[in-house]
């Protein structure tokens, strides 16, 4: 298969970015999207090796993009492909996207996540440190390793444990923010708040957690939630917006208690 790629190139956070057009050829349909990007990069590096070619064109080296596990769980990959975070198709990360999902000869646009809270580091790489900061504000249960009861001392109904697990499968990739017209991080925050709030272990700090995480989210420049539900539609792990409803309940009941 052959493709035309329009790829966002940006030297660093300060400089302005632009699209560049590249062509890749003879891509097998079982190739993953990131393997296709690897092939593009090999091609660009070989072009760079030839000083004559570099002098002629605009030399910007291989395209930088975040990636690591390549099996859909680490949450590092973060490409905005043809107007969708992680590209077309539901419930996949970019690394699980395969070229068989595209048409031969198609032009594919590749951009970084775009959000005020996620500044571009280079090309398609953004800084998602804001997510870490939100979790540092309260996304934990305060315990000491030496003083915990036997694991089976706290029975948890299977249904609750399953729901908690649904929310806990968030991989922190940021697709929810990238898909939201307001750049809201509500789904991300809601997933963590919900997964802990659903379990008896999470209850003692539930009020403090919900308030602290929401306050940190607002402080870091994420937008407000206007219930478009784009986040759920684009979430590679299918995290439900019902978690946002639960976050709102937790948050309001915490505020009432103030």
């Amino acid at each position: 298969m052959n493709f035309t790629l329009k790829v966002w190139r940006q030297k660093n956070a300060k400089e302005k970015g632009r699209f560049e057009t590249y062509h890749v050829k003879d891509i097998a349909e079982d190739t993953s999207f990131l393997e296709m990007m690897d092939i593009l990069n090999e091609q660009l590096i070989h072009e760079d090796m030839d000083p004559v070619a570099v002098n002629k064109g605009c030399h910007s080296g291989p395209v930088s993009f975040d990636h690591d596990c390549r099996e859909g769980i680490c949450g590092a990959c973060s490409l905005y492909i043809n107007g969708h975070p992680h590209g077309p198709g539901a419930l996949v990360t970019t690394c699980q996207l395969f070229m068989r999902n595209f048409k031969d000869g198609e032009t594919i646009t590749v951009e970084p996540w775009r959000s005020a809270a996620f500044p571009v580091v280079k090309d398609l790489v953004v800084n998602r440190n804001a997510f870490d900061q939100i979790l540092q504000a309260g996304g934990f249960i305060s315990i000491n390793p030496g003083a915990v009861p036997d694991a089976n001392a706290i029975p948890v109904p299977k249904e609750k444990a399953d729901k908690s697990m649904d929310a806990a499968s968030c991989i922190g990739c940021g697709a929810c923010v990238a898909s939201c017209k307001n750049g809201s991080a509500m789904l991300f925050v809601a997933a963590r708040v919900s997964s802990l709030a659903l379990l008896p272990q999470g209850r003692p700090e539930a009020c403090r957690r919900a308030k602290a995480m929401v306050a940190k989210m607002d402080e870091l420049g994420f937008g407000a939630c206007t219930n478009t539900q784009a986040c759920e539609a684009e979430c590679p792990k299918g995290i439900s917006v019902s978690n946002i409803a639960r976050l709102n309940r937790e948050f309001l009941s915490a505020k009432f208690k103030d």
Partner: protein
Amino acid sequence: MADKLISHIPDGPLAEKWTKHKADIRVVSPNNKRKLDIIVVGTGLGGASAAASLGALGYNVKVFCISDSPRRAHSIAAQGGINAAKNYQNDNDSVYRLFYDTIKGGDYRSREANVYRLAEVSNKIIDLCVAQGIPFAREYGGLLANRSFGGVQVSRTFYARGQTGQQLLLGAYAEMNKEIARGTVKSYPRHEMLDLVIINGEAKGIITRNIETGEIERFGAHAVVLATGGYGNVYFLSTNAMNSNGSAAWQCYKKGAYFANPCFAQIHPTCIPVHGKQQCKLTLMSESLRNDGRIWVPKKKEDVAKLRNNQIKPSQIPEEDRDYYLERRYPAFGNLVPRDVASRAAKERCDAGYGVNETGLAVFLDFKTAIERLGKDVITDRYGNLFQMYQKITDSNPYEEPMMIYPAIHYTMGGLWVDYDLMTTIPGLYAIGECNFSDHGGNRLGASALMQGLADGYFILPYTIGDYLSHKIQEPKIDTNAPEFEEAEKKAKEKINKLLSIKGKKTVDELHKELGNLMWEYVGMARDEKGLKTVISKIEDLRQEFLKNVYVDGANDQFNQELEKALRLYDFFDIGELMAQDALNRKESCGGHFRTEMQTPEGETKRDDENYMYVAAWEYKGKGEDPELHKEPLKYENIKIAVRNYKD
């Protein structure tokens, strides 16, 4: 220098060693902990749990990782579960049985005392993780569920769907975040360790490269904890994450830490087969699938031919024409034999011409019987996300047709040599998790990596490091202007400049693929003397080519992934070479290390306990010099050494 190799295993009965040791070692008072700095490199299960625990104790912790967030460390990808000797299933499990299974699974090449301690603390890990809010799978009664893994006959594995590693890591990361909020831990994401700094023979700091800016920085501490994982990516194609590498551990080796059993690499039997030349990463299908999936190849070669030509589907092959070779060869354990055994059995069938897939390098993992027995819903509940992942990658529906799988490099049992306190041969330098060598011998059992990472980080290192640090309470903050820091930083910069200035004709990945092919061919599932000698010289040739002909794009003072890869590949040549040397030295077959000269008539591994019942710890002797081998004899006082038997 052999006197460095003292394991410090406490005296006394096995079951009392750890308790006695804890009572004997010194502790640091809270007001002194505040004055002590600890560096933790890596934020997987080992690193994150260590940073969280040390922070909770009140030490000043600096924690480093190469990814944009600590949560992305490769522990996140562990699927199946974590072992513990809880005996919640009432199936006669115990600390002793977990200990015994682990020693046997490791083919009698791990330390009794370390493994017993691991089994002993395993139960506390589960207690802690539940308290952290990890949503483990539960039964309808609200109590925790278990499943089985390879090499054992009890159900002792706790799990959170097929995402156990993710959940455990998020738990450790959350505890670390709590400490970051409290101010005891400071996190440095996108920082790669380039060197270890040693002052007066003790580890006192590290040199890092800021991956975003290229800035080379110095950090000092009273102790350094390495939790940087394994070196499986030396094979290029593996189930490891793309950025996983052995460089941090390797710098420690070059600074004097012994490297133990480098040839022990685990080849996981159930990975999605290679599909073409453009592939760069293999995907694991969790071992837990072997609880319900049955592994087979066709009995008849004509069926193999028809399958390869797409004339029939695997589901059309009748039951009597299927060879469930694991059930046939190992009736007692069946599909749940340990990983090394299952991998070799798959290779044996494929080498004999019964492999499926276009390449002939695959076997079937079939859920037909399980779906008939349990129903599709139960299978979806247990493995839904794995089935979904398989279908996404292969475009084939595992509910209808069996999965195709093939072995791939997954984990490295070898690593930095550590004593009972998890300290390397460099005082003040600790190694935990996959990065050390201590607990898995020649082969790791499934669901034991998570157990070991968390045992080291939550319950062992926080105790043992106190003993060392109790002698440092009057030592001031480490001065990073010391000449040792100057020198290390200068060398790191020189290395970077050298790599950037070669400007040859081959990309980093092209050379890495060549190295990977060599490693897989000669230091993979089957090894022999001739091949190992050949590969050592081939690696040297390739290293020379790398040094003359690599092209590293870009500059240092920028986000530069090519430079990151080049720095890691630089060390992979050395690591590959030492692996081959170690494999050549170990003229026996044991665990994942299969020397074709040493096998039984049935093709099973043949150990040589008389000559090789030792840990091979290699000491770096300088560039171009052969490393020196030190041997730590393994003593089995509580377990009767036997031929590993999974047949009856």
